[in-house]
C-alpha cells in the first residue's frame, strides 16, 4: 500500500508512519501513481468501470497483463474481503463505497460501531501515533484544505481510533472498513468550512481520549459522525419537497 499502510497478519492494516517519518514524503507516497494492480482494479470498480462479475480473461485484456498477475491481484482482493471467487472463471465483487446509498450504509455502520469501539473495555490509544496524527491534523489547518487531502487525514484519524480498540472484532471490522473507505470512497464536494470543522472535531476527540474521558470521546464521535452526514437533497425543484439524501462525507 505505497508504504502508507502495513499489514499485520490477522490484525489488519496499520499506519506505517512513526514520529520520525517525514510527513511530506508520506503524502507524496500516497499520491504516487505506482499503485498495485489490485488497487487499480479496486479503483476501477469504485468508478463503476467494472461489472459485478469480471472474468479473468476480461481483466487480462483490460490491463494488458498476465494471467498470473491478475490472479495474484484478485487473491489480494479476496484476502481483503473485497471480492469472492465463484464457480467458473469469474469473481464477484462485494459491496464497496461506490454509490451514495453504499456511503449512507457505511455511515450507519460507523455510527453504530465507532463510538462503541471507544467505550468497549480495553481501548488503549496509541499515544505515539496519536501525536503524529494530531500534528498532521493541525498542519492541515494551516493552509487551504481540499477534499482529497482531508480524505486521507480522515482515514488516518479513524484508523487510529479503530486500531486502539480493545475489542478485537470491532477493531478488525473497522480497520477493514476504513481501508475500504480510503480506497473506494470519493467525495469531491464538501465545503471547506465543513472540512475544517471536522478536523477540529477530530482534534477534540483526541483531546478527550488522551485525558481518558472515553465516554466524552464516544459522544463526540457520535456528534462528529452525525454532523458529517451529508444532507444535500438528491433532487430539488421549485415547488417540490427536496428528495432526501443519506450520505456521509467523512
Amino acid at each position, binding site marked *: 500500500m505505497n508504504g502508507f499502510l502495513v499489514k499485520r497478519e490477522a490484525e489488519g492494516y496499520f499506519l506505517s508512519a512513526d514520529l520520525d517519518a517525514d510527513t511530506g514524503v508520506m503524502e507524496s507516497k500516497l499520491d504516487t501513481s505506482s499503485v498495485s494492480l489490485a488497487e487499480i482494479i479496486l479503483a476501477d470498480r469504485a468508478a463503476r468501470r467494472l461489472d459485478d462479475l469480471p472474468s479473468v480473461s476480461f481483466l487480462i485484456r483490460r490491463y494488458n497483463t498476465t494471467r498470473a498477475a491478475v490472479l495474484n491481484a484478485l487473491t489480494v482482493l479476496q484476502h481483503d474481503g473485497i471480492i469472492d471467487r465463484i464457480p467458473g472463471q469469474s469473481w464477484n465483487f462485494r459491496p464497496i463505497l461506490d454509490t451514495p446509498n453504499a456511503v449512507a450504509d457505511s455511515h450507519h455502520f460507523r455510527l453504530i460501531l465507532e463510538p462503541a469501539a471507544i467505550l468497549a473495555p480495553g481501548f488503549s490509544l496509541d499515544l505515539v501515533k496519536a501525536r503524529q496524527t494530531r500534528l498532521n491534523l493541525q498542519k492541515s489547518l494551516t493552509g*487551504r484544505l481540499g477534499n482529497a487531502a482531508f480524505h486521507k487525514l480522515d482515514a488516518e484519524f479513524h484508523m487510529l481510533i479503530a486500531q486502539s480498540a480493545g475489542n478485537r472484532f470491532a477493531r478488525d471490522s473497522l480497520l477493514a472498513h476504513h481501508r475500504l473507505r480510503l480506497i473506494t470512497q470519493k467525495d469531491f*464536494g464538501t465545503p471547506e468550512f465543513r472540512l475544517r470543522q471536522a478536523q477540529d472535531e477530530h482534534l477534540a476527540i483526541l483531546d478527550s481520549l488522551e485525558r481518558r474521558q472515553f465516554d466524552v470521546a464516544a459522544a463526540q464521535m457520535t456528534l462528529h459522525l452525525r454532523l458529517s452526514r451529508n444532507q444535500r437533497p438528491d*433532487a430539488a425543484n*421549485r415547488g*417540490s*419537497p*427536496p428528495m432526501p439524501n443519506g450520505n456521509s462525507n467523512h
Partner: protein
Amino acid sequence: MTSHPTIAFFPEASFGAALNCVAIAQALERRGAAPVFVCHPGFTGVFADYGFKEVHLPGAGRNDEAADYWQAFIHRHLPHFDLSPQDQLSTYVGPTWEAIVDTAIAADASLEHALAQIRPDAIVLDNVIMFPAIAQAGCPWVRVISCAETEIPDDNVPPYLSGLSADDPKRDAFETAYRTATANAHRRNTEFRRKRGLPALPHGRFMEPSPTLNLILSPDAVRYARAQPLDALTHRYLQGCVREEAQFDQPLLPNHHGPLVYVSFGSLGAIDVALIDRMIRVFATVRARFVVNVGGFTEAYRNVPDNVVLGSWFPQPSIVARTDLFIHHGGNNSFCEALFFGVPSLILPYCWDGHDNALRAAQTGVGRAMNRSAWSNDELRGVIEGILADRGMRSRLATCAAAMRQNPGRETAAAAIMAVVSKDQTRVAAAREPSFAR
C-alpha cells in the same frame, strides 16, 4: 448602523437559488454582517456546511413520502422535458406554478414565525413568488432574480420561459398561452395575497419588485437592451454570483488525455439516467476527459468509460474554473458560472429558464444550444468537438470573464445590501429623534 447587521436569507428550495445566496452571504460575512438562512425542509445542513446559521421551517413529511413523490414526479414529467416550451406550458409550467403557490401558502405562517425569531435587519428573498410574511416583516427586503433576465418583462426581452427571441412572431401566442396555463395558480395566489393584505399582481406574475433593492443575475455579455430601462436606484445587475467552494481535486482517469469537460444538468436533470447514459457512450468516443454529475443516481450506471468520471456532487465553481467546456441545462447559475470563468456552454435545456438561456448563449456567441435528446451520436460529438476548437468563442468569453471578475456580483450584491441596511437604520433612528418643531 449596527456593526453586525443580521441578514436573513430565504432561497427557494432549489440548488441554484440556495448556492447563489451562499455566494452573497459569504461576501456579506466578510463585510461584518451575520447571515442566517431560513431553510426549507430537506435543505437542513446545506448552509451549515458553509458555516452559516440555519433556522428551519417545519418538515413536510417522512423521507419515504418524499421518495415516493419523486418517483411519481419522474414518471410524470420526464416525457414533458422533451416537449417544446409552448407545449410545456400546460404539462409542466402550469402544474409547477400550482405547486409553487401551494408551497408559498403552506410556508408563510412558519416563515413569519422564523423571521420573528431572527429579527433581521434585512431579508434577501431569492424566489419566484412573494411571501406576505416577508413583505410584512418590518424591515427592508431584497429580491434576487437568479433566474434568467426574462423573468422581468420588457418589450425587448423575450417572454419568460419561452425560448423565443424578443421579436419572434409567436410571441403573442406564447404569452397568451402562458397566462392561460398559469391562470388558476394566479387566481389562488391572488386570493392568498388578498387575505394577507397584499395587492393583486398582473396576470402571469407572482412576485413584485422590491421597493428597495432588486438584484438581477445577468452579466453584461448576455444582458438585453430594455425598451424601458429598470430603475437604477432600486435595481442592480450582478456580474454572476459565484461562491467560494472547496478545491476540486481532479481524479486521475485511466484515459487521461485531452481537454476537460464538465457535465451537469442539475439535480432535476440527473433524474434522466437513460439520457445521461446515452451521452456518456458518446463521450467515450471524444478525445477529452469528462466529469459528469449524476446526482444521487450513481447506482444506475455501469461500464463507465475510461475517460469519464461520475460523481454525485461536485464543487461546481472550482471545477468550472478548470474546464474547457461546460455542458449543462441552462440553469442561470450554471450559465453565469461558465461566463464568469470564460468557459463555453453547451446548453441542452429541459425546462424553465433553461430554454431562454440556451437561446441567449447562441445569440451572444458564448455557447451553443441543442435539443436535449433529439441528437445523433455524431451530432453530439461534432458539436462538442466544434466548441472545443472554437477559438473565437474562447476569445469572446475571455473578454467577458475579465470584465465579470473585475466586478464580482457577490460583492456588488453585498455592498448594495449593506447600503440598504445602513439607509434603513438611519431612517429608523431619525424617526425616533424627538421633534423640536413649534
